[in-house]
């Protein structure tokens, strides 16, 4: 319960800031991808920088997560073919839509039709991938569990 409330709260914070920074505006994303809005790259870079320092500080102090009690830790993953193949597809869709999974959710909150259409596509896409992955691994004894730093 606490976990879900915390996740919901962080989600609200994320959605608000993304919308406020206009990341939920397809024109902004298109301009970024055309290298006309370097601000968005700086935004992502500074987020990565702050998150990198914060996560390492927590781990160095041997901190435990306040709600779950787990020790703060994460796995590093080795790049595999699926990371590159999947990301080529993802990048193509991102470019076409001018939005990606997070901002599309914020767009729905803002009542933008495009957000609902992209989100419907995303759900269809993840379901399709699940079906295909299950068919491809049905011969092997254990299903491939995708889990790593990115959390899927």
């Amino acid at each position, binding site marked *: 319960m606490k976990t*879900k409330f*915390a996740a*919901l709260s*962080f*989600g609200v914070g994320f*959605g*608000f800031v*993304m919308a*406020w*920074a206009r990341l939920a505006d397809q024109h902004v994303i298109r301009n970024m*991808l*055309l290298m006309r809005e370097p*601000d968005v790259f*700086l*935004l992502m*870079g*500074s987020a990565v920088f702050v*998150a*990198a320092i*914060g996560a390492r500080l*927590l781990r160095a102090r041997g901190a435990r*997560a306040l*709600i*779950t009690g787990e*020790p*703060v830790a*994460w796995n590093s*993953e*080795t790049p595999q073919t699926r990371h*590159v*193949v*999947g*990301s080529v597809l*993802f*990048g*193509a*869709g991102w*470019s*076409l*839509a001018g939005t990606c*999974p*997070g901002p*599309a*959710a*914020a*767009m*729905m*909150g803002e009542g*933008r039709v*495009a957000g609902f259409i992209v989100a*419907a*596509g*995303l759900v*269809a*896409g*993840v379901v*399709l991938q699940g079906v295909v992955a299950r068919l491809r691994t049905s011969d092997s004894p254990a299903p491939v569990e995708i889990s790593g*730093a*990115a959390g*899927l």
Partner: protein
Amino acid sequence: MIVDRCPWYIAGPLLGLMIVGLRALLNKPFGALGGYVDLADNVLTPRRLGFRAFLLLGIVGGGVLYATTLGTFGYSSIGENAAAQAGILLTAGVVMGFGARTAGGCTSGHGMTGMSLGSPASIASSMTFFATAVGLAQLLSWFGGQP
């Protein structure tokens, strides 16, 4: 104006701090795609929905909060040639969902969280999707096909 648009040097560090906060409270990575996966897998048994789905629902709520405070609700249609536009957006969504689940993350999961943790798979994924997206955007603009 800061009210009109949050500048990168505030928004970026704020997002970074929230990624750290999620780590400090739950030891979980921030990724939006996981929410779609969670919803798709567990929507029929809502009690099984986990933090990923709630994170995503929160983002929708954040959009609502922004629109009711600093922004405006935009019920705007998607422009001229609506059917074609909708088709492109839906297709793009399917391709993104399929690709990101294959790669194990999206712009937030790999691009922000995984990058910040220095995960080689996230670095490879992010470089790939940024290069693809930038390249395709350029191609589309040359051929005038920008949707």
